[in-house]
């Protein structure tokens, strides 16, 4: 439209009472109630498809089957319409949503919770509670089946460690990292290398516990190496670079067969042993609780260390960088140093998780480090509530548990479909995550009022400078 005509201008926009009334009040087909109805019906149809038959050879099979399966389709649509009716009449009948009993229940509940929270925060309540929680967690493996024990260690605890690490990078320093699993891989391969299982042999062979500091160091260096050249990048640019870094590490593990044994992976990474001279202990394949306790201890130490960071000089500097990098630098914050620190801390945590995983599974291959897992950890962290250690732990535990429990209820192949749907729904209704950190919540509130960005990651590239 950069061309300009010389014709006379349009007649002055005229408006009448009726046209204005139309503008002020939406027509019925634009009304919320109607839109909700359409949405509900569509959801009903969608749900029919979701619960329908798996298609095979014939691309039309499932489509035909679910859309002509009238009783099933009808049921779901009816349920959807029913829900719609409930919602709509509920608010219509009462006129004022504040009168609704549901509303009242929610309000009362939140009021109760609000009353309880400060009590929980009190020292004499808080510590017993935490201790009780730790005891329950510690006893958990002795109550559940072997399957859940495995899940708790391999799928939940390891990823909780990862999430604690990624939280430092994303939640605190505000660096969007889509390649976090690369460090996990480095950790795991370090374990394989230093225990002499890779095709290339190490100068000395170490036991898994001794590998941990080495892996931490390796990942620290890797984190800095990744961080250093990318520090000028912001938000999404950083995201794609970290993603690229992940792919490069993953493909190196796959392609550099001489060093990593390629896709076949390496086997026989030993279980950890603990030898204190007077007392020694060896982890085994069958003693599942031992791994759980080991990870609890590791996580405990990390939480103990990281919690201090959040409310210290370092945590504040991260927040400052996240919110406004130029202003932070102008006030003397060495942004490079703090960003690298975040990368390094996150990467080392990930490395520890890698060592643990390698010695638990005793097998390392690229298949454990696919890009999807990087995406998933990020989802776990945000789902739980960035910046809040408790939140990310809970979020990770929940999302890692979910596919396992879904195994019992839906077709195993469809689990990711449900996982995806849950992610979307959750983000619609609780975008701040399960337990958001206080600072993040404030940022979110500010964003709601249009003052800045909720995650402070949209700083224009190059930064504002005035």
């Amino acid at each position, binding site marked *: 439209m950069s061309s300009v005509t010389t014709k006379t201008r349009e007649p002055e926009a005229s408006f009448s009472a009726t046209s204005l009334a139309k503008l002020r009040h939406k027509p019925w087909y634009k009304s919320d109630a109607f839109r909700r109805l359409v949405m509900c019906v569509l959801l009903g149809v969608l749900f029919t498809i979701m619960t329908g*038959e798996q*298609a*095979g*050879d*014939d691309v039309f*099979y499932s489509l035909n089957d679910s859309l002509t399966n009238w009783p099933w389709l009808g049921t779901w649509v009816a349920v959807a319409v029913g829900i719609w009716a409930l919602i709509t009449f509920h608010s219509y009948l009462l006129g004022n949503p504040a009168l609704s009993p549901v509303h009242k229940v929610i309000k009362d509940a939140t009021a109760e919770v609000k009353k309880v929270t400060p009590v929980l925060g009190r020292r004499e309540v808080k510590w017993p509670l935490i201790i009780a929680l730790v005891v329950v967690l510690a006893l958990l493996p002795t109550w559940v*089946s*072997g*399957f859940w*024990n*495995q*899940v708790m260690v*391999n*799928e939940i605890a*390891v990823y909780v460690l990862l999430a604690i690490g990624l939280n430092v990078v994303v939640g605190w320093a505000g660096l969007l990292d889509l390649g976090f699993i690369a460090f996990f891989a480095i950790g795991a391969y370090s374990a394989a290398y230093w225990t002499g299982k890779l095709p290339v042999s190490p100068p000395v062979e170490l036991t898994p516990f001794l590998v941990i500091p080495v892996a931490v160091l390796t990942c620290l260096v890797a984190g800095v190496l990744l961080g250093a050249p990318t520090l000028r990048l912001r938000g999404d640019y950083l995201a794609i670079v970290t993603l690229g870094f992940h792919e490069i590490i993953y493909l190196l593990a*796959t*392609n550099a*067969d001489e060093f990593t044994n*390629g*896709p*076949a*992976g390496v*086997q*026989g990474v030993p279980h950890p042993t603990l030898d204190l001279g007077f007392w020694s202990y060896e982890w085994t*394949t*069958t003693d599942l609780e031992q791994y759980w306790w080991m990870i609890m201890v590791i996580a405990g130490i990390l939480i103990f260390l990281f919690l201090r960071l959040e409310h210290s000089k370092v945590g504040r500097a991260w927040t400052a960088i996240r919110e406004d990098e130029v202003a932070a630098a102008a006030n003397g914050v060495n942004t490079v140093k703090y960003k690298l620190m975040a990368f390094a801390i996150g990467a080392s945590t990930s490395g520890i998780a890698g060592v643990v*995983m390698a010695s*638990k*599974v*005793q*097998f*390392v*291959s690229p*298949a*454990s480090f*696919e890009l999807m897992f990087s995406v998933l950890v990020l989802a776990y962290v945000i789902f739980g509530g960035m910046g809040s250690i408790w939140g990310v732990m809970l979020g990770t535990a929940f999302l890692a548990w979910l596919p*396992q429990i879904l*195994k*019992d*209820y*839906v*077709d*195993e*192949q469809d*689990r*990711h479909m449900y996982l995806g749907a849950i992610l979307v729904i959750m983000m619609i209704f609780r975008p701040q995550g399960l337990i958001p950190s206080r600072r993040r919540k404030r940022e979110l509130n500010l964003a709601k009022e249009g003052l800045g960005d909720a995650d402070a990651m949209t700083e224009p590239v190059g930064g504002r400078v005035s």
Partner: protein
Amino acid sequence: SDDKDDDASSNPGGGNKPTYTIGFQGGLTGKNAQLGINEANGVKLAIEQANAKGDLPFKLEVKTSDDEASPDKSQSAAQKLIDDGNVVAVVGPAFSGPTKAASPNYAAAKLATLTPSATNPSLTAPANKFTALLRGTPNDNMQGSGMATYYAKKLKLKTVLLIDDKSEYGIGLAAVAKADLEKAGITVKTESIPQGTPDYTAAATTVKNSGADGMIYAGYYQDGAPFAKKLKEAGVSIPMISGDGTNDPEFIKLAGAAADNWYLTCPCADANVEEATKKFAADYKAKFNEPAGTYSAESFDLANMIIEQMKTFGAEKITREALLNKLKAAEYKGLTKSFKFDQNGEYVGGAIFLYQVKAGKIEYLGDIDKLSAA
């Protein structure tokens, strides 16, 4: 999760028969999910048919456990089966990586695992102590050397281009083929064309320009098919051979005319010649509304092998350990081949058969050793 149809096929005999479960572990989601699904379906079909026959002294159920083809998900998938006291034997794991991760657990539980498709040679190394693992398929060594033999002895090629797909399966196969080709004095060039390559045109050009007079593709049909198309477009006409990962009707469906003249090997006898296999194919299609795929029949066989051994218990209670021991010693003639294991659980015997695609059909040529000798 358990298959809904199981109840439909429950035995008419009634209540007091014991119920046993046969497990399946494989990747039902994630990369190559279709292969896991093929196998799971084979097992399901075997169990459904066994129940339907009504001559079992027990009732059978199936329990699948998805390991997402990922080693670190494998242990919990295995544990799910181990925990279930009803599970007396397992078909699977499907992939070698997860097999390596979970076998110690199965060994500790003395739960027999009969894998229809984990072909990595090192799995049966005694040092692993994978004492509950029985391999129901010749390992990569055999297929790889079969291909090499055919090229060397029958076609008498000078230079062979060996392509793997960077999957565990592909590189295993390629490594063996490479060794055997070199042993036969053939010059070997290698390339890797990973799974999911976005465009095979460049790869086809590489083949065309390689100057090789024969090609081996160690990979699956999903990638082999588009590759074959591009090879045809590029006008490559040297002999091309691929393994059981490609030996599937889907290969032809996907590649169309480009599949013509490809040689395909398989440790499996021709799935279309015999009556029994035809019936299997029809039943499978009827139940899952897709044709039986790679390893469906092998899984079906292994499940039936387990069932056969279970029958030998008669009214006796079946324990995992006892069943494992019986299976170790057993021999079973299935649709695809005969199954028998050595003391390490390695597949015994195993001729490799050669096929060729002709006019849109996979045609059976014969035992590769015999063909090469001729």
